[in-house]
């Protein structure tokens, strides 16, 4: 594919992610940050985020599997997840976490389990999308172009 086309696709894709609310400004900011500092930064942050999130999701799943669920612990994990997702700009994941936390507060196991599903879904969704995004960037770079700046 032509570089220009690829670039256009990337821009459109990024825009769609923003309009869908999967990502927000924070992500754009990080993208900009990457431009201005080291180039691998965003990938680094995001992979750290994914790593971290996966561990947290496991922790949450484990905590909710217990005989007697300690909602405080769960809430702590979700809080963490919420914080990191907010800081990378995974908006929908963050919102799912907010909903999750309210169920933790209510100590509603059912709500928590439902929320966990949602959170997982959002997580895989954002992971998928962001990875696609990175792939597209790589393609562009491989094709000899430069990653277009958003905004």
């Amino acid at each position, binding site marked *: 594919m032509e570089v220009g086309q690829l670039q256009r696709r990337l821009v459109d894709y990024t825009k769609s992610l923003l309009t869908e609310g999967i990502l927000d400004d924070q992500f754009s900011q990080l993208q900009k940050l990457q431009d201005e500092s080291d180039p691998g930064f965003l990938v680094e942050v995001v992979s750290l985020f994914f790593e971290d999130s996966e561990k947290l999701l496991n922790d949450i799943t484990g905590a909710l599997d217990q005989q007697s669920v300690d909602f405080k612990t769960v809430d*702590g994990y979700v809080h963490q997840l919420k914080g*990191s997702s*907010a*800081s990378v700009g995974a908006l929908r994941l963050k919102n799912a976490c907010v909903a999750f936390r309210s169920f933790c507060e209510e100590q509603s196991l059912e709500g928590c389990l439902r929320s966990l599903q949602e959170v997982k879904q959002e997580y895989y969704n954002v992971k998928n999308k962001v990875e696609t995004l990175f792939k597209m960037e790589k393609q562009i770079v491989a094709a000899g172009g430069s990653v277009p700046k958003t905004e």
Partner: protein
Amino acid sequence: MVSEMEGDHFEEMDIEVLPSMWPEDIGTDAGKQFNVEKPKGDQDMLEEVTIIEEPTIVDFKRLLELTDYTERGASQLAHLVKHWEYKQANAVRLLREELDNLNKQREDVELRKLEILEEHRFEEERYGRDKRPISILDEVYDIWLEVPRRRNDVVVQNKRVEIDAEYDTVVYWKLRAMNLEKLLEASVQREQILTDKLQDSITNLERQSSPVEELSQILNRADNFLHFVLQNAPVVIGHQDKELRYRFIYNHFPSLHEEDIIGKTDVEIFTGSGVKESQEFKREVLEKGLPAKREITFETELFGSKTFLIFVEPVFSKSGETIGINYMGMDVTDQVRKRERMAQLREEIAVQKAKETELNKTIHITEETMRAKQMLATMSHEIRSPLTGVVSMAEILATSKLDREQRQLLDVMLSSGDLVLQLINDILDLSKVESGVMKLEATKFRPREVVKHVLQTAAASLQKILTLEGHIADDVPIEVIGDVLRIRQILTNLVSNAIKFTHEGKVGINLFVVSDSSSGKGEGCPQKFTATESRVSTNGQKEERHQSTSQTSSDGQVKSQVSVDGDEEEKDNSPETTVWIRCDVYDTGIGIPENALPTLFKKYMQVSADHARKYGGTGLGLAICKQLVELMGGSLTVSSREHCGSTFTFVLPYKVSTTFDHSDDPDELSDMANHDAVNHDTIESFFQFQPRTLGSLFSSNGDTNNQMLLPHTMGYTRSHKLNGFSHNSYSFPSNKVRPNDTASVEDAGSVVDDAETPCEPESSSSQRPSKQCQDDTKYRSQNPIADSTDHTEASIEVPEMKRTKEPQGTSQRQEKSQKSSQSISSSCMEVPKSTLKPKILLVEDNKTIVMVTQSMMKLLGHAINVVNNGVEAVCAVQRCSYDLILMDVCMPVMDGLQATRLIRSFEETGNWDAAVKTGIEQIVPGLNSSQNCLGSTPSTKKIPIIAMTANALAESAEECLANGMDSFVSKPVTLQKLKECLAKYL
């Protein structure tokens, strides 16, 4: 009557049937035998009746009268009689038939006898004459034959006369006559028997059925039934005559004897409530002639409290007049009680339900309101963050080189931005007060200083030729306890308002003590400064005191702090009283028209749209002032004359120690660099700030040394001056009324400074070095006023300031210069990568956030140290001194709030006791460590701690500030937010 008629008829028939020769009285006799005395409803009839029944008390005469005179009585009797009559009539009819038969037989027999006699005579007469005997016989035959046909039961011998003799001979006739004679005899005999029988029957009849007896039997039975039915019924039945005197009463549970009731009225019998009512009711029925029912509650000595359902029915005479009443009462006390209970319960339920709905509604409304407010607050907060960025960037831009046109544009931008900020701050403030989130603090402060500072601040940004003055009465205590931030906010608001609407003349503040709230029309609720609150604060101070006194002996450097504390200690031990201080803010401005006064304190209300256009403003300032004053238990009023000026008055209660001495112990202040100033400051009672053209040099009746004590708020003002060269009036209030953000931090700083300044003036100035960005920090940092004026017009003071500075110790100067060099390095945004980098600590457990923040900081030119929880943060602070700490609130092991408290405790006391108590090992002795690390930085330096919170709501911000944090940024942390933060605190 009927029977009589029948009797007549019978007689007539007899007459008809019988020839005239038949004796007249036979029929009558026969009739008479059956003619029973007819019951005609005579009174005699009932006289024989004796009814003696215990519970029934009867006035028999009356009953007789009744049966006589009333239709019903009569008809009832008539019915009984009729019934009896019917039965009798039936018997009579049967008897009569029998009699009829017998009579006929007798007639026949007689007839026959006559015929025979005639025949005989005939025979004798004629002897030779021939008559038709056979025909006679035939006739006889006919008669005989007829009788048995009619009455079968009558046995009539119907033998034929047999005569042996030869016909028409003497013998023959003799024989015949003899035979006939015999027959006749037999017939007569038979008749006799029948008559006897009849007689028997009649006597029987007479004996067994007397109508009176039967009637009384029936009545008896009815009576028995009635008794049976009524035996256990809780009813009272009675009859009362025209005068409502009882003539009859049936009562199952009689509590009175017959003689007590009969012939008396209700009123005569009972006393108590309800009796009269029932009597009235009966009378009513009597008069109206219509039956009626009513429930009457009696409260009588006789049977206590009982409710009766009473049915009263009038009794009419035959002529239609009422002659009395029948009344029937049933005890329904239990039912009534139950019913009332039910009604009551139902009512309660209804009330409960109504309340519930009301409550639900209220809850709903409250929730809605809260949500709306929350929403507003959140929104405002969210708007404020980026706006601050815009404004601060614009301010930075203003420091760069711009041509005139650009500067003008920038000025507009700045003032607009400031206005929006102010509006948002106002909204936040209001919503905080309204939602009850706003909490008052009780801190010691000096009203004179507050007044002075407010006026100074106002004077600094004054752009009109106005005199600002302040009078403080001598009886106003040196120190009082109250929420100085809010009071300052109110004062600043009122003063800036006054300045805004005053074009010439003066604006001033009068402060004096009033006896109590009454003189200021205050609603008087000094308890709003809750006793517990102030007690807590004093306790805290005591603790503090304890620690610092121990220090006094060891370290001379902090002696001054101790002395100030000592001063407080004196107060702590003394009893607290409440003093009401009235504060007038007057001006000679345009005044307020009378019709605008009522809406003056309403939200978003300005005197007129025209004013709004001309003077700007949000219309929230006074509403906030009023709410704040009322929150503190005081009142805010206004009096004004158009074109002459206005006076806003608020009266507030303050706590004060009665034993506080005006003449401070000179020893206490001896170590203070500016002790003179303090001395003067505390007793100063008049300030005046002359119009700007004369420079912002202010005169006061105190020493010029006062200026050295200029509060750091002034420094802040100055920084504004520096950044935004031409300030309009908006920017001034915007700085002052910002509670959460910068202003509150500033104010909080200055409050702390009030206590701390005397010992370490430098430390406080070093907190905000970036604001000042000064070249000649040595003096300017000490006196911001001088700076501000210096930058604008007046430079006369500079030498004077220098002079005042001279006496200060050289060591201090050295310190200062070191510090100032630091502040230079970090202050100016344009040169972030200066020689000495500020040390920044990030306390955050979330790796992603750490990474993001780190790279952002890197972009901003800062390297940061990172720790992962509160304990590590405390350790880090122990090891090294930081210029700024970014602190996450929610963390494992120890949260940011506690860590901040520990760090603050260290800063205040100089030791890590509090931290040790929580189990954090002290790595290096606190005092040394700080000296080791930064050398000149004293342990009392207050590190700016910025909270990083996920909850952007005002409450958590409040919590952060309450725990000693300086400000907060909401997550996710953005470059912009970090920039602002660094700009503000480095």
